[in-house]
């Protein structure tokens, strides 16, 4: 018996559970990018797992978090070793617990990263004359951090400025063959500075009052804070 498929269609936990419940003896090979894991199930119990230099239960905990990749299952292949001693239900429960813990940690890190970015924007505001608002915006047009002293519709600003920076990016690339670094929009009432964060997945937008802002200061300060924002970006 052999079977192959994608992890987009079936989760690793379901693959293991299915063969264990049916008391099968199978060799499961799972490939994700350049990583290849092997899991041996003998008569409905996981008995051996290997991933690069790693062997045993830790391999199962690692691959339970894989949601992309392909699998290939071959029946009636006996394990060369026994490195897993827990029964399959305990293995999957422990794996689920670790995944929950990891997700909680990631969410907490993301939240604290964003709060830190809000704080950095607040500090930056103190150094910009005529400051009105600042946002860190993703290329999907959604703001991930913001600070405002004026009554502005920050959601609308994020969406509109993203359209503009995308078009300017294309204009620069297709006409001069260059790479856009920043853009300054000057209107009668405001300056709007937009600067990419490294990786160009997000950009910083700062709105300042035209009458009170100093253009050189605006360019200088946003440049300095760009690095701090980038360093505190949630990974």
């Amino acid at each position, binding site marked *: 018996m052999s079977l192959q498929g994608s992890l987009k269609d079936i989760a690793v936990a379901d693959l293991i559970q299915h063969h264990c419940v049916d008391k099968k003896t199978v060799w499961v090979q799972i490939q994700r990018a350049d990583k290849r894991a092997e899991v041996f199930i003998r008569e409905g119990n996981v008995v051996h797992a290997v991933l690069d230099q790693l062997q045993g239960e830790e391999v199962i905990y690692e691959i339970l978090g894989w949601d992309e990749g392909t699998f290939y299952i071959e029946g009636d292949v006996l394990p060369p070793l026994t490195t897993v001693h827990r029964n399959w239900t305990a293995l999957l429960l422990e794996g689920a617990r670790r995944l929950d813990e990891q997700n909680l940690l990631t969410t907490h890190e993301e939240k604290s990263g964003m709060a830190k970015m809000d704080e950095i924007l607040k500090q930056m505001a103190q150094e910009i004359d005529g400051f009105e608002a600042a946002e860190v915006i993703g290329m999907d047009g959604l703001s991930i951090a913001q600070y405002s002293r004026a009554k502005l519709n920050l959601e609308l600003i994020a969406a509109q400025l993203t359209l503009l920076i995308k078009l300017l990016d294309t204009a*620069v690339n297709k006409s001069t063959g260059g790479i856009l670094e920043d853009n300054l929009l000057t209107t*009668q009432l405001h300056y709007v500075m937009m600067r990419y964060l490294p990786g160009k997945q997000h950009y910083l937008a700062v709105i300042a009052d035209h009458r009170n802002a100093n253009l050189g200061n605006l360019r200088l300060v946003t440049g300095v804070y760009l690095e701090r924002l980038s360093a505190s970006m949630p990974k």
Partner: protein
Amino acid sequence: MTKLEELLQTIRDELGADLVGSDIVGLDGFSVAGLSTDPGLNREAVSARFALAMKLALTVSEKLNLGELEDNLVTADNYITLCRSLGDGSYFWILTVKKDTTLGMVRLTMNDYAPRLWEAIPR
């Protein structure tokens, strides 16, 4: 040489080696007059693409109640491109300069010449 071309030539002389390209562009994205010191600069593409970007910048300024658009300054790794509305906004002046140009000077030059360029556009 038309009045418009004469003015663009004067601006070129003032900015010297810093100037890369200068075009007066209609809302349709076509240049009505221009010059370039860099044969590698695709003036047609610059005019068309930046006219499109300026139109969007006008819309964005209006939607966000930012006030009337004065200009847009794009810094890229190779050039700096300034776009400025002329007169009633039916034409733009697109000026491309080298990256190490003194920006303050370029903006002053634009302030100085924008009204004269607008007057020189044949109507």
